[in-house]
């Protein structure tokens, strides 16, 4: 009798028959052996996946039309994820310190650009992605307006969307200060000087924002915490409500 080595596809089939593999990929997964392109397995593929079950099993056919949504909401969400990942990477190399005797924040920015592996690329992705996210969220809002998608029963989700736009601007603006270069502190000085004109609470608002009377080391630490923790935390909560309400309000709006 001749022994033949198993072919790669045999090995693949064997692995996909193991209990471990089957415990990871639930029925309907395209990685599971025996996936058939039937209605049932297509439905299971959505239902049995933690990411995909943001979606219902079926959507209106017109929702696939690219010129209805332009994928703007989904791309904004993708940019948020990309910014989270690149942001975590940058946090490993960045200290929000600008005290006397040396601005660690600024020197850390320089070393991210010069000595961190892929540091420059990741910082560029983070910065350009952030500008793009402000842009795509604004465009998403315009799309939702022009398709009339804020009309009942979706009124409240529009309000959540306006809050998300505000939070996006807040995240972008707090991040703008962190490089601690001339561009950063003067842009933030100009932006926050307006708070001094708020009625009744001008001084308090200014002090709350800056942690002092001018943009300084306290502002940097404050805005860093807002940027990496506080605002993303709030944003994720509103994002969850936003996505949940899309489903509860009957999925994508339209057609026109």
């Amino acid at each position: 009798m001749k022994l033949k080595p198993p072919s790669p596809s045999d090995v693949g089939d064997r692995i996909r028959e193991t209990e471990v593999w089957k415990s990871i990929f639930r029925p309907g997964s395209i990685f599971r052996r025996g996936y058939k392109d039937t209605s049932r397995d297509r439905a299971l593929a959505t239902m049995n996946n933690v990411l995909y079950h943001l979606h219902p099993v079926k959507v209106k056919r017109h929702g696939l039309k690219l010129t209805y949504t332009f994928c703007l909401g989904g791309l904004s969400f993708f940019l948020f994820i990309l910014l989270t990942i690149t942001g975590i990477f940058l946090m490993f190399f960045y200290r929000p310190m600008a005290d006397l005797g040396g601005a660690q924040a600024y020197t850390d920015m320089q070393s991210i650009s010069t000595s961190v592996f892929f540091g420059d690329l990741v910082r560029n992705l983070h910065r350009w992605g952030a500008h793009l996210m402000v842009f795509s969220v604004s465009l998403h809002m315009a799309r939702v307006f022009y398709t009339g998608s804020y009309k009942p029963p979706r009124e409240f989700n529009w309000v959540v969307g306006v809050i998300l736009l505000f939070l996006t601007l807040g995240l972008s603006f707090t991040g703008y200060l962190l490089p601690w270069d001339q561009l950063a502190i003067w842009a933030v000085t100009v932006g926050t000087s307006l708070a001094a004109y708020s009625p009744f609470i001008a001084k308090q608002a200014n002090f709350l924002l800056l942690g002092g009377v001018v943009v300084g080391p306290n502002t940097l630490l404050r805005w860093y915490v807002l940027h990496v923790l506080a605002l993303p935390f709030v944003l994720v909560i509103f994002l969850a409500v936003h996505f949940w309400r899309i489903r509860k309000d009957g999925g994508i709006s339209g057609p026109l």
Partner: protein
Amino acid sequence: MTWEETPKDLEAYQAALDALAAAGVDSRIAEGRARSKAVRTWREANPEEAAKLEKAPKAPAAAAAGGNGADVAAAAVPAAAAAAVGAAPVMAAAAAVTTPVREAPLPTGNVPTPKKGVDDKHRLLALVPPEGIQRVEREQGDRVNVWPHLLIEEFVAMFILLAALVIFSTFINAPLRELANPNLTPNPSKAPWYFLGLQELLRYFHPMIAGITIPTFILVGLAAVPYVDRNPSVKPGDRKIAITLMTILFMFGATLTIIGSFFRGPGYNWVWPWAQGVFFEL
């Protein structure tokens, strides 16, 4: 025993069905009620034959028939409820002989004995009046599976964006100017681009108006849009006012932002970008 095999009074069935339909009862419920009426009428007319049927071993048929078995049982509720306790062991024995292969365990037929001194209770699994059922009515419409149709579209959009961003980031570096210096104000000093519309407004209005009142008004106004615009139509032709107003707002924002970004130079004075250059940084 299937519905076709069950002895029944078809005239009573038709009469009950017509009466219920005339009363506006849902057709599915009317049919069920008419069926039980037909079987009951037949049983009342032929009591001897009904009793004979009750005694006959019908377990195999009932086990095999499934849903239909339940039909019959439901139809014969008053008689069967009393008979079932005694008949169950017999049925079980018969089933064991005629159908040796059966996956689920056989019913024991044991009924829990009630406590002494407690009134006999009538046990019900559930009794739901048809009016109590919430009917969800949603148009099925023309729907497609999310996997693969929508998810593939999303993945393609995502990868195109990611590729574009990576290529852009590879070749164009984010700015990093000299170290922050609170004593040296750059000229011009501008806010990030998304606030340049507001900074431009500062040229025309008091900071309280331009920096606080107008932005607050815009944000609150935007949030209030669905509660102000009560026009139910989504057709662009029916929403001319809403679309015009919002387009004017967007155009104002875009124009002010573009002016603030490209047409303002040293001292925040007017410049022509093609003549004096662009004073704008991202």
